[in-house]
């Protein structure tokens, strides 16, 4: 579904991504793991058109994404949940969700999707009239995922959904990611929390200082001695 080949991204003269390649097949959960500064967020930002690649190709369902602006990706079917959630703090939960339906011209469809988010995340439904900024970290993450659900992407890019959350909430969020995948959404998950990510992923790639180094089925990657030592701490 999504294919990234030899991707390079520079920040000024500093190369953040040197050679990143991976495949995201439809219907699967793909994990991209790596430590701080490995280039995980940059990779997602490049897919979303927020960074301009200096080399390599990104294609989605056979279409080259070069030159596609970030706001146009939603229409193509890619939803990006950014790092740190980035919800709209002074808008209510409902307004946050309604905004995400901006590109969907059918108002009834937006309503239906919002209802879907409420069934999927009952805690978001409880907070519907509250301002986004007053939600807890976990609730904000749920709202951010809910927002992506309303945009209706077939491919969901998730940037560090576990960031700053209590372990019990991390489990809850990851359960929801699996459930969302079962409903038919393809997921590209970027995580520092390698253990949790490898637990739910079908395939995994390890990103190290701008290169994709180790890849394979999530189980194989989890069993790789280097991964076990560097990322899983066993």
């Amino acid at each position: 579904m999504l294919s990234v080949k030899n991707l390079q991204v520079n920040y000024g003269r500093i190369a953040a991504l040197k050679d990143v390649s991976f495949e995201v097949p439809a219907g699967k959960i793909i994990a991209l793991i790596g430590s701080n500064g490995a280039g995980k967020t940059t990779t997602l930002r490049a897919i979303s058109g927020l960074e301009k690649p200096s080399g390599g190709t990104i294609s989605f369902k056979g279409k080259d994404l070069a030159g596609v602006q970030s706001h146009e990706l939603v229409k193509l079917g890619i939803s990006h949940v950014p790092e740190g959630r980035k919800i709209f703090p002074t808008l209510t939960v409902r307004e946050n969700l309604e905004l995400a339906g901006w590109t969907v011209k059918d108002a009834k469809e937006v309503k239906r999707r919002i209802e879907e988010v409420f069934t999927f995340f009952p805690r978001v439904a409880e907070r519907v009239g509250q301002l986004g900024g007053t939600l807890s970290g976990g609730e904000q993450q749920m709202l951010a995922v809910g927002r992506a659900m309303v945009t209706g992407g077939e491919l969901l890019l998730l940037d560090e959904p576990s960031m700053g959350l209590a372990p019990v909430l991390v489990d809850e969020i990851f359960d929801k990611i699996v459930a969302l995948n079962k409903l038919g959404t393809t997921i590209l998950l970027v995580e520092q929390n390698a253990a949790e990510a490898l637990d739910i992923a079908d395939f995994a790639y390890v990103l190290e200082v701008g290169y994709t180094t180790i890849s394979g089925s999530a189980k194989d990657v989890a069993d790789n001695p280097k991964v076990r030592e560097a990322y899983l701490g066993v």
Partner: protein
Amino acid sequence: MKIPRTPWLLVVAAGFWAAVQLLRLVGFNDYYLFIANLSLVYVILAVSLNLINGIIGQFSLGHMGFAAVGAYVSGSITTLIFKLSPNVAAHYPGFVLALVAGGVAAALVGVAIGFPTLRLKGDYLAIVTLGFGEIIRTVFNNIDAVGGPRGLLGIPKFSTFTVILAFALITVAVIRNIAESAHGRNMIAIRENELAADLVGIDTTGYKVKAFALGAFFAGIGGGLYAHLLQIAHPTQFGFIYSVQVLIMVYAGGVGSLTGSVLAAFALTILTQLLKSGLSSLKSLTGLPIGGDWYMVLYALLLILIMLYRTEGLMGTREAKLMVIPEEDDK
């Protein structure tokens, strides 16, 4: 665009118009009328700046530059018409067209400035817009055809109370309706978090350029009305300090609250006049070296106090009832 069932804005504007007409009969002199007119011009300037600074959250410091474009363009057109045939009454349709032409010219300048600069954020955008505002002013200062440093003189006094009030009403109504629409919510989303707005599919750059152009358009109208009120367009009228004055109105009223901008435009225009005359009489009474122009010092002090003690301004982001279009029932 939803239209409210009771056009309260129109009712209030009509009430204000009638009240001023009645007061004119009982000693509301030309000076008071001038202050009312000036306040309404500032309503146009403050509300249009609030669209840019408050609603879509792009910090612009060059609003008076756009007003200058409107003033000079419309002023040039009307002085030309007036020279050809000095029959004032016959020229009102021409005047309205000249104002709109001034607004369009200002909007074009807004787009020209907006495209390269709107990718900048916060302080950088403020500095660049400040620079552009001064460039526009300096350009007019050096074009001899519009009077250069002498200013464009002999502009006919077409800005009557009724005309200014009508344009103020249109400005407030248009910007209010945009702010209350889905487009307005997208603009607020851009203010709140540009990245997230982008990622839910909102064309952030497009919105910013459009908001900038629309704000500039109404600033151009305001500038045109201003020139036809004072009968002169002079580079010093559109200096940085006046952009700041409009900015203070937006902040004092509450960033994002159109009601606040309207109230602050009136309050601060009246306050300015009181301070100017008050400080002048203080000077002649006591001999203290405090002239009328020292009102700007008190203005700056006011801005500091707002920032320290009431960041959200008079109204915060709240609106008076008449500024809100009631939501339709969901059921």
